[in-house]
Structures are given as structure tokens and as C-alpha cells.
């Protein structure tokens, strides 16, 4: 885990404050990963435009998963993209969080009945904050980023860990919509 602190350390007063300082630093400089998929990606870009400007909160796009803290899944995840999305998540450096933006990433949204759409990105990666909307307003995304900031910095919220997803989850193995001819 990180050099100076991890969440499982025993809670004592002295280290607690250092732990809080580190978590405050992590929450005050969240670098999202440039990974736009669909319509929500355009609203994600609009969150950094002059009108709403998430750069005021120190959020600065990084292209490589190694240097990114937050992965904003903005758009529909289909079966072809699911494997790459999971690999991107695994490549990110450890204290990482995921924001599921828009109806398609939450639980498939208007396309959830499609044959090749994964219903919800929380089947593939553990998600911290969900944003409804199709596409959600840039202010809604900024509110979600600030909710994530509070989750990282706030001690009791920090331990509401989303359930871990096994890395080798095979999206194609879902019953029914697996793209294989029915065995008659």
C-alpha cells in the first residue's frame, strides 16, 4: 500500500492525524484518468471548461493509468470494452477510486437490454460514487467529485469500502447474453 499510510493500520491518536493529513492531501489533489467513452465524456470535458472548471479543486487530467487516482467511467461499457476497462483499473496505482457517471455506467441505462451491453460497471470494477443522469450535468459530476473528496477525507466514510471484484471476472460468462449459439 502507500508509503506512509494504509487504511488497515491500527487507529492511534498520533498516527491518526498523519493518516488524516495524507488522506486530506489525497482528497485535495484527485487526478482523473482521461478515459471518455460516450456522451457522458463530452459532459465530463465540459466539467473542466471555463463555466464550471473543476480545476479549481486541483483536479488535473492525467493520461496514464499509473499517475491517475480516479477513474471516471463516463459512458456505456460493452462486452468488448469490459476486458480493457478492467485492465486499465488494474494498472492504476493503488489508492484508486472509481466514479460511475451516467445511467449507462450505473446499471446499463437505456441500453441495458442490449445483447452486448454490460449492465453496470460495478460488475467489473468496485465503484465509489454513482451519478444518475443521461448525461448528468457537469455540476452533478463536480458534486460527485466533491462527494468522493469527502469520502476520502472523512474518517468514517472512508471505511465504507465497495465490495472487491475478482480481477478475472469473465464478462462473457454471464448467463444468456454470452454471444454463443444456444446448444439445441
Amino acid at each position, binding site marked *: 500500500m502507500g508509503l506512509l499510510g494504509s487504511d488497515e493500520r491500527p487507529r492511534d491518536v498520533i498516527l491518526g492525524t498523519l493518516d488524516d493529513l495524507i488522506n486530506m492531501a489525497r482528497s485535495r489533489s484527485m487526478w482523473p484518468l482521461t*478515459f471518455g*467513452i460516450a*456522451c457522458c465524456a*463530452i459532459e465530463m470535458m465540459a466539467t473542466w*471548461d471555463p463555466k464550471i472548471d473543476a480545476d479549481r479543486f486541483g483536479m488535473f487530467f492525467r493520461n496514464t493509468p499509473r499517475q491517475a487516482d480516479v477513474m471516471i467511467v463516463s459512458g456505456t461499457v*460493452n462486452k468488448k*470494452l469490459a476486458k*480493457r476497462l478492467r485492465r486499465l483499473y488494474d494498472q492504476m496505482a493503488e489508492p484508486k477510486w472509481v466514479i460511475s457517471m451516467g445511467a*449507462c455506467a450505473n446499471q446499463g441505462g*437505456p441500453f441495458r437490454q442490449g445483447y452486448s451491453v454490460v449492465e453496470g460497471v460495478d460488475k467489473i470494477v468496485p465503484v465509489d460514487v454513482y451519478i444518475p443522469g443521461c448525461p448528468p450535468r457537469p455540476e452533478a459530476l463536480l458534486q460527485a467529485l466533491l462527494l468522493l473528496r469527502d469520502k476520502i477525507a472523512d474518517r468514517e466514510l472512508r471505511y465504507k469500502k465497495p465490495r472487491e471484484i475478482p480481477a478475472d471476472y469473465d464478462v462473457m460468462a454471464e448467463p444468456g447474453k454470452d454471444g454463443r449459439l444456444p446448444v439445441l
Partner: protein
Amino acid sequence: MSTMNLEPVPGRTDEMIVNMGPQHPATHGVLRVVLGLEGERITRAVPHIGYLHRNHEKIEEARTYPMVIAYTDRMDYVSGTQNELPFVLAVEDMLGVEVPDRAKKIRTIFFELYRLASHLVWMGTAMLDLGAISPFLYTFWDREIILGIVEKTAGARMLPNYYTFGGVRRDVHPDFFKDVADFLDHMERRMVDYEHLVLESPVVHARTKGVGVLDQERAVARGVSGPVLRASGVAYDVRKAFPYDAYPDVEFEIPTSPDGDTYARFWVRFQEMYQSIRILRQLLELTPKTGPYKGRAPARLKPPAGERYRAVENSRGELGVLVVSDGSDKPYRVKHRGAAFSNLQIIPDLFVGAKFSDAIAILSSLDPVFGEIDR
């Protein structure tokens, strides 16, 4: 055996297979191009799409006609209501619904507003791919003004679901015309800045002149349409070829450029923005302030059995839709012909032989949007 990757040719040892994968800052979405690189020069390029395949056509076969309009918005998500128009026009032809003149003008105003918004997003991301950080922010601020105007009338910013059979769902906001007029003045001031930053910049000249040349025959044979085709010298524009809505009563030119390279595509889109401003100014005078905005559409929409292909000139090119109906209230088959789908087919021709940085400039000049390509 999955052929998702290029297999190294046994003879060539100095070729490096690079995977410009679904997550890449310059692919405008989820395109994956597998490149064979010799140093910086590209020897082989195989584009892979389908990472945003959301099964539009299969889901639309299970939805009634008014519901399908909401889905068409999500295809070319950068130019909102432009995707709804071909489907609405096709069904209106089949149903025989007549659209009041004022509704046609309102539709065309929204159509041209979204063309400006789409070209602004294109210019922002194209300059970002070339390395200039600032134009991206200026263009997105202009686009915010457009989205503000649209939200005041249609209720949603990007995907408003505003057109319906026979006209538009709701009349325009009382001070809509004043907002659009102010926006056009603001836009004309901004275009001067964009001229300095984009078209006159020597670095852009060095990066785009003579790069990715597409001659006329190959462009037409490849089925390319829109600014990419007009940059190769063919003056084909669906607004003039098969006029629809209020385009017959406004006059505008179709900008074309003979030399077909990346700079020509930048220049043609620039002139199209000027033409859009000109069209909008004429429409502001022509449209009566009050009047009908929706014609008589039958309550239960059941078009007679048959098929209809209707095309429209959206900001990427000819966006056509083939609606096949079997008399029930759900379309039997809806086939969307996206311009970006054809425009992307010339990637292998233009990439091979070009340098790697040129490939980024070429891809951004094609302006692909993957909701429309992968459907």
C-alpha cells in the same frame, strides 16, 4: 483465432506493432488502431471499432416510433438534435404528416445551432491533439452558451429529444430569438480569435499542410461525405442536393477546397461555421415570433408498411436512416447510415506512409464520433 492484433510479418524485423488502444487521448473516444511502426513511419494500420456498440438497431426494433427519437439522440452525441431529423422526416413522409412552416424554421435553427456546437467541439479537440491547450477552453465556453439556449427551450443540454413527428415538442422560449442573436454577435467576435489561433498559426500550417491528402476519386469511391468530401473538391451537400425543412428559403454557399489535405478539412469546417452563422441570421428574420410549432400527428403512430431512406447533412456528413415499417406501431428495421462510419474507412489509406504525429492530425481532421460509428 482472434485477428484483433497484427501478426508480425516474418521478413520484417524492424517493425514495431503498437496498439493505439481504446484509451488514448487522441482517439476522440473508443477507437483502437493497431499500427505497424518503422521508427516514426506507419507501415500498416488496422482500425478496430465496436467498443461503443450499444445495439441501437436491435433495441429500436422493440420500441414504438416516438421512443426511437429518444434513442437517436444518443448516436452522434456531439450534435444533439441533428440525429433526430432523418428519422422524423422519414416517418413523416410515410405518415404523410405536413409540418407547419414555422416549425420547419425552428427545427433548422436548432439544426444549425448544433452544427456550430459540434464544429466547436471538433476545433477544441483537434487543437488539443495538435498540442495547443487554450483553444479547447474557448470553444467549450462558446458551446456552453449554445447549450444554455437549448436548455431554456428543450429542457436538456446535450440530448434534448426535442423534435417530434410534425414539428417540435414545445414552442421556443419567449426570449429565445434575442439569446440566439446575442450569441451570434459573440460568435463573430470569437471567430476572429480562432482565425489567429488556428488557421493563421504557422505551427498548424506545418502540422497539417500536405498531410493526409485524399484525392477526389478515392473520396467519392470510399463513400466519404461531409467536410471531408468537400475538402477534396466535391461540392456535395445534402442541404443543397435534397433540400429539407427550411433550407430552400435561406441562401448559403458550400465551401469546398481543391487540395484535400488536413488543412483543407480544417479550413472547410471553419467556413461552414461562417455559413451556419449566416443561415442563423437569415432564419432569425424569417421565423415569425408566434405561431404553430407542431402539425397534426395521429395519436397511434402506425405508418403503412413500406420502407423509406431519408438523408440529412449533419456536421459530419450525410446522416441517413432507412426505416422499414410493417404497419405495426414498432419499426420493423431501422438502419442508420452514419457519415463518420464511412469517413473512418479511409484511415488505412491515409495512415500508411504518414508519420505517427501526422496520423494524430489526420484522425482529428476526420472528426469521428463513436456513438454514430458503432451504433
